[in-house]
Structure formats: structure tokens, C-alpha cells
């Protein structure tokens, strides 16, 4: 009971912004807080809670995970962490979708403000309701070509990784669907089951229980590799349509980050714990059970990956007319 209340009191104190002590001893000597910018129960939240628990085993302190949601593309949480000292005691839990916060007016920083660590991501795929008349991706694309812009498609919110994947398959296969935005992957998948939309593009991790339960019928993976799930081999869309590699794959990158301005000592300590955790069996088991691919990139390698995603997202959003800030004005280069 005491420890329970203690943890809560600790979390409350951090929320109150009391974490402003200066680092005098060797890092880390007090508890670290990770503020996840997406809601509890989602992919980014789950991954952060999992990896932080593993990293704790390689650090002398505890890591508390809190959620700081809201704003534009998770900008509330990023601004919150930005305003904390860059001493490595406040980390931010984020995902690839946060790279759009700047061009959507949520904050005014390029993504290289962060020093990221990528745990992994789950590949996207295109699925239809179990009772759908489309049995293959070709049938679906042919139907869309016959009646452009009428077949309703769900793919999470506008400007999300799933939306970009949908756009990529449209461009690559020369089909046009009617994109219907949903607030997240789960409501989009729900809509597919209820028959409100004819197809849904989300990640394998998110669709897995519905495919295994026979609610959704997978048509094609949007990655070069095929996948095995529930005894079905899901073919790769790359094998069906040539030239998709010009647009795909666009993959999730979920993990956490520290201020890029943090000291080298902090970055080294975090990298050490991160690498040790990623090499552990618990992470591998978790990834296999949840249909995630392990990343493991950190530092400059991860920054390069995010910068690529950032320019891709930013200019796609500008083309869609939903970017409120010109990406060039932020110094984001064209992909």
C-alpha cells in the first residue's frame, strides 16, 4: 500500500512539474519519467511500458511511465518534455506519426530536436471484412478502377502512417478509394467489421486478433515480405504490382527519445541500457507474440530514419492540403 501510494505521489509530483533538480551525481541517480504522447492502451504506450520495464533492469533507478496526450499529432506531450531540463530525467515516448506535429502547427521544431531510440514497428497490411466479396487484392483494385473514389476505405486519421500506406497503394496500383478518416486504428477496424467501410489499412499487430478470429480477411502485406498468420499466407503486394517499391514500404517506428541537447554521458547510459534490453529475451518474446518487428536503432541512425519519415510525411500532407505550415520554412527537405 505504501509503495502504491508512493508511486502515485511520485507520478503526481512529476505531473506537477517538480522535476527540476540539477544533476550533481552520476546519471542516473534518481527516477526517470517517460511521458508517452499517445493514450493508454495504444501501441506506443504499450511498447514504452514494456521497454522501460526491461531497461530498469539495467539501470540503478526506476522509470515511471505517464501519458501526456492531446494537441496536434501528440504535440502536447512533446512540448511538455521539451520544457523539461535536458538532463535525461524526462524522456518522451513517441512514434513515427509525431513527425507531422510541426507541419500541422503543433509546435515549431524539426524532429532532430530529439535523440531517438526505435524499439520497432508492425508492418501494414490491407484487409477486408470476412464476408467481403473481394478475395484478392487484384479484385479489389479492379473494382476501384471501375468506380473511382466510391469504395470506402478506413486507415486511421488523415496523415497517419496507415493513411500514407493507403495513398501509396493507390498510387502504385493506380486505384482510387474513398478515404474515410477515423480517430485511430481500432475504430477503423471496428467500422470494417460493421460493414461501414469495404477495406482497412492498419498494422498487423492491430489486426492480428481480428484476423485470427475470422472477422477480417487479409488481402496483402504492404511490405516486400509475405506474412503467416492464423494458418494463412498473406502475399506481399510487391509481388502483385510492379513498381510499388517507388512508394513503399513505409514502416512504423515506435520508441522513445531524449533531448538531442542532452549530454553525451546521458546518451551513452541510455543507449547502453536500451541495447541491453533489446538484446534480452523478454523483448524478443514480446515482439513475436504481438506481431512486431524489432528495430533497435538509436542515435544518429534513428535520427536519419525519422528525418526520412518526416520529409515523406510533411510533403504528403502538403500535397493533401492539410499541412498548415510550409515544410520548407522548417528546413525539412523534399524526399
Amino acid at each position, binding site marked *: 500500500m505504501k509503495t502504491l501510494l508512493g508511486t502515485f505521489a511520485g507520478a503526481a509530483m512529476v505531473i506537477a512539474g517538480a522535476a527540476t533538480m540539477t544533476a550533481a551525481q552520476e546519471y542516473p541517480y534518481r527516477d526517470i519519467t517517460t511521458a508517452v504522447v499517445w493514450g493508454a492502451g495504444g501501441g506506443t504506450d504499450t511498447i514504452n511500458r514494456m521497454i522501460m520495464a526491461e531497461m530498469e533492469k539495467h539501470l540503478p533507478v526506476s522509470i515511471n511511465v*505517464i501519458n501526456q496526450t492531446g494537441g*496536434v499529432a501528440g504535440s502536447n506531450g512533446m512540448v*511538455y518534455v521539451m520544457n523539461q531540463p535536458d538532463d535525461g530525467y524526462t524522456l518522451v515516448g513517441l512514434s513515427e506519426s509525431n513527425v507531422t506535429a510541426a507541419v500541422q502547427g503543433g509546435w515549431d521544431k524539426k524532429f532532430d530536436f530529439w535523440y531517438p531510440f526505435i524499439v520497432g514497428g508492425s508492418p501494414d497490411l490491407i484487409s477486408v471484412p470476412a464476408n467481403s466479396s473481394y478475395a484478392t487484392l487484384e479484385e479489389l483494385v479492379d473494382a476501384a478502377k471501375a468506380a473511382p473514389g466510391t469504395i470506402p476505405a478506413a486507415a486511421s486519421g488523415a496523415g497517419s502512417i496507415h493513411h500514407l500506406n493507403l495513398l501509396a497503394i493507390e498510387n502504385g496500383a493506380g486505384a482510387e478509394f474513398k478515404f474515410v478518416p477515423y480517430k485511430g486504428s481500432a475504430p477503423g477496424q471496428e467500422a470494417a467489421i460493421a460493414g461501414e467501410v469495404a477495406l482497412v489499412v492498419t498494422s498487423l499487430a492491430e489486426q492480428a486478433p481480428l484476423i485470427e478470429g475470422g472477422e477480417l480477411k487479409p488481402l496483402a502485406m504492404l511490405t516486400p515480405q509475405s506474412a503467416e498468420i492464423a494458418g494463412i499466407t498473406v502475399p506481399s503486394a510487391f509481388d502483385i504490382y510492379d513498381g510499388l517499391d517507388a512508394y513503399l514500404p513505409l514502416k512504423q517506428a515506435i520508441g522513445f527519445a531524449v533531448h538531442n541537447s542532452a549530454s553525451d554521458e546521458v546518451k551513452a547510459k541510455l543507449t547502453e541500457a536500451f541495447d541491453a534490453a533489446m538484446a534480452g529475451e523478454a523483448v524478443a518474446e514480446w515482439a513475436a507474440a504481438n506481431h512486431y518487428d524489432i528495430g533497435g536503432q538509436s542515435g544518429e541512425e534513428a535520427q536519419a530514419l525519422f528525418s526520412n519519415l518526416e520529409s515523406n510525411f510533411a510533403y504528403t500532407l502538403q500535397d493533401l492540403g492539410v499541412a498548415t505550415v510550409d515544410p520548407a520554412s522548417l528546413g525539412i527537405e523534399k524526399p
Partner: protein
Amino acid sequence: MDFVLSQLAGFGGAFAALVVDPLTYLYLVTSVFLGIMFGALPGLTATLAVTILTGFFGNKIPLDYSLIALLGAYVGAIYGGSYPSILLNIPGTAASAATAMDGHPLAKAGRGGEALGLTTTASFIGTLIGTFALLIFVWVLLLISKNIASPEKALLALFGILLSGTLMSEDLVIKGWIAGLIGLAMAMVGLDPLLSEPRYTFGWSYMMSGFQVVPVLMGAFAVPQVIDGLRHAEVGKLTQFTDRIVPSLASIRRYLPTITRSGVIGTGVGALPGVGEDVAGWVSYGVGKTVSKDGGKFGKGSIEGLLSAETANNACIGGALIPLLVLGIPGSPPAAALMGAFMINNVIPGPTIDPAIILRVVAILVMASLTMFLMGLFTARVFIRILRIPQTVFLPVVLVLTTIGSFSVGGGINDLYLMLGVGFVAYFMNMLAFPIAPLVIGVILGGLFDETFRRSLFLSDGDLTVFASRPGAAILLALNAALILSQIPAVQRAFGRLRGRAA
């Protein structure tokens, strides 16, 4: 029938395993107590309780035990929200807003102990009804919830707003609807849910994420209460009350039909994805007011009104777990937090979940509701002493607690300005006899209505018939129309004449 029997047998096994394990009690008592505390503190929600415990337990202890802690806190928090609703007229969580309508008048009449005792019993029975449905009717409820699409959700949200407007008005129903529409308008602020266009933000980034529910809830209920209390406080005057809390068997038997009906409604609402405890309380309250012989007394301290709301929000828990466990789609916000806890432990809720886990969840819920019942009768005794504290001391403390609650949602200092702003508007609305609850319901359900209404039209290319062409939607549309028509004087007169002729 075989299915029912095998489920019952499996439940018996899981329950026995739980009862003989001494560690169960340690986790249960701690978490239920923590949950009640969270529910009872204004602004701290059941979702927050489950989220914090998820973070604390995560994958540090086996899933079997973390489930006990999480479900215990969930049940406790939904129940704990009834304390401040009844004693202070400030709902501890959005789920218990409907509880305040009849609970507080009862407390003012000196029947607070009786009200707390009955809600404890009703919450207990409600949880059991929801749990029983989770065990037996899992597939039937699933069939219904799977066929709910955007048009139905939009009409259900609109019904909730109109219904609370109709029920809460002291004099003119139109005043309730006006308050509801103000809430609906407030819900429009922020990035629009379909195309991410900023609306009514005036270029201010705080407004982009829209108005948070908790600061609005706290502002609307707590601030006017504190202002009013301090204006009319008489130093040394205390509310008189009787101490009897444990309800008599006779009164439980008398209210059993109400409790059962509300339990069934709560479970059904809970099973709909994305619709949670807050809506369950209102829908059940509305149905209760319509079908009860006592309907006229609702809002003036009716036990039946109190039980309608409080049974339903607890029954909602079992209902909300059905789509979570069977489809992997959480039925309410706390259930979404619960989903995270499963996934951290490599258990993916959905069709592939191990049936033994469902049985264990059911067994834990039964144990948790029992713990809540016994502990509730004890904590209610402590909480009712709050009424003995002089208002001049207590109300400032309440204001501090609600401020902390509003701040806890993470929007920063602006959320506190929002709370105070809504509070002052609410105070003057109270003076003009405009009900404030529909405004809050408008903010809570407005987002859902906005999103689903526009998406329905987007899908149908602007064709309004989508709201009538599906069977579920047609029924809900008829309910909405009936609700509005029943308040138009000409229609009321026509009905009166018809009734006169029949008699």
C-alpha cells in the same frame, strides 16, 4: 444450454482457485480501496486509476495478480464516484453525474446514510449482473455491438444529450436543450475529427485539442457548489442525518425490479464499443423516469432514480469487457487502459484469448464486487462524516481537490482557467434555472456525435436517409423524434385529447 453449464463449471473452478489463494485478498483489498479513493476524489477518474496501476504493475508481477489489482480498482472507482455525488452534489467521475440528481436531495433531507447504503448494494448487484452477462450472454451481446456503425452511434449520442436536457430542466424543457446545445457547441472546438481542420481555435494552440471533459465537469459542478455554499454558509450549522447505512432486506426486495432493469440496461450500453459508464447512467435514469410509477419524483430525492443511475454504471463494467475480451475492442475508456495491461503481458485480447482468462476475469469481478460491497459499507460510514465538517472549512478543501483533479489531465494551467470560466458561467446558469448537467453531457457526447454524424454523411455522400435506412438507426431516430415531439405543446394537447376520448 451445454455452453451455459460449461461456463458455470469453469467459473466455479476459477472462483475456487481465487478464493483459496491468500495473495488474492492482499491485492483485492488494496486495489478496491485505492479505486474507491480515486472515484471519491473529484476529477480523478476510473481511467486514471486503471492507467496508473497498469504503469505500476505492468509486467512486474504475474498477469493473474495484476488483473486482480486492475479490475479491483476499476470496480472501486466507478462505485466511489457516488460518494461526492450524493454528499456534495459534485460527481466524482463523469460516470456518476446522474447519481447526483437524486442522491444529493436525499442527503440534504438527512437520508444520506440510507442513500449510500443502497447505492453500495445496488453497485454490488449491478456489477454481478454485468459479470453474469459477460459469462453467459457473451455471444448475443457481441452480435448487437458488432452491428453498431456510425449512424447508430450519432443518434445514440444525440439521444443522450436531448434526454439529459429533458430530464434535468426544473421548469422549461427547452432550457435543458439550450444547455445541451451549448455543450454540443463547446465540443466542436478543436481539430475537427474528420479532416483535421482547426475550428474556433482563434489560432491558439491550446484550443487545438479541444475542451477536456474533466475541467469542464469540475467547473460545472464543483465551482457553483462552492460559491453557493460559501455565500449561504451559516457558521456552525451542520446537515442532520441518521447513521443507518446497512439497508434492510425489505427495502432491497422492494427496489429489486429497478435494480435488475438498470443492471440490464447498463450491461447493454457497456457492450457498445466506445460508449461507457457515463452514458449508461443517463440512459438508465431516463428509462427509469419513464417507466417508474415514481417518475414524477425523479430529481427530487427519489431512491428509484438514484438506483437507476448507480446500478447501471457498475453493470456497465461487465458489459464493457465483452467486446474487449471477445473482439479486442475496448467498450469504455477504462477498458482501453485495461487492454494495455493485457498486451504488456503478451496476452492479446480478442478471439484468440485463452478462455481460462475470461473465466478468471469473471471470478475476479465477482470477488471485487464482494470486496467493494463489504468495504463500501465501512468506508461509507467514514465518508458520511464529511457532512459533519463545517462548510466554511470543507468547501475550500473541495475547491483545492477539484483544482488538482482538473490539473491532472495534463493540459496545464489553461485547464484551470477553463474550469473557473465554466464554473462562473454555470453559477449564473444555475441562478437562471438553466440545468448544468446537459451542458456537461453535451461536451462529453458532442465529440462522439460530431464525428459519427459527419462520417455517416461523408459515407453516404450527404444523403440523410442513412439515419433511417438501417433498422437500428430507424429505431433510434424514432426515439429522438418522439422525445422532441412529446415536448411540443400542440402535440401534447393532441395526445391529451386522444387519451380523453379513450377514457
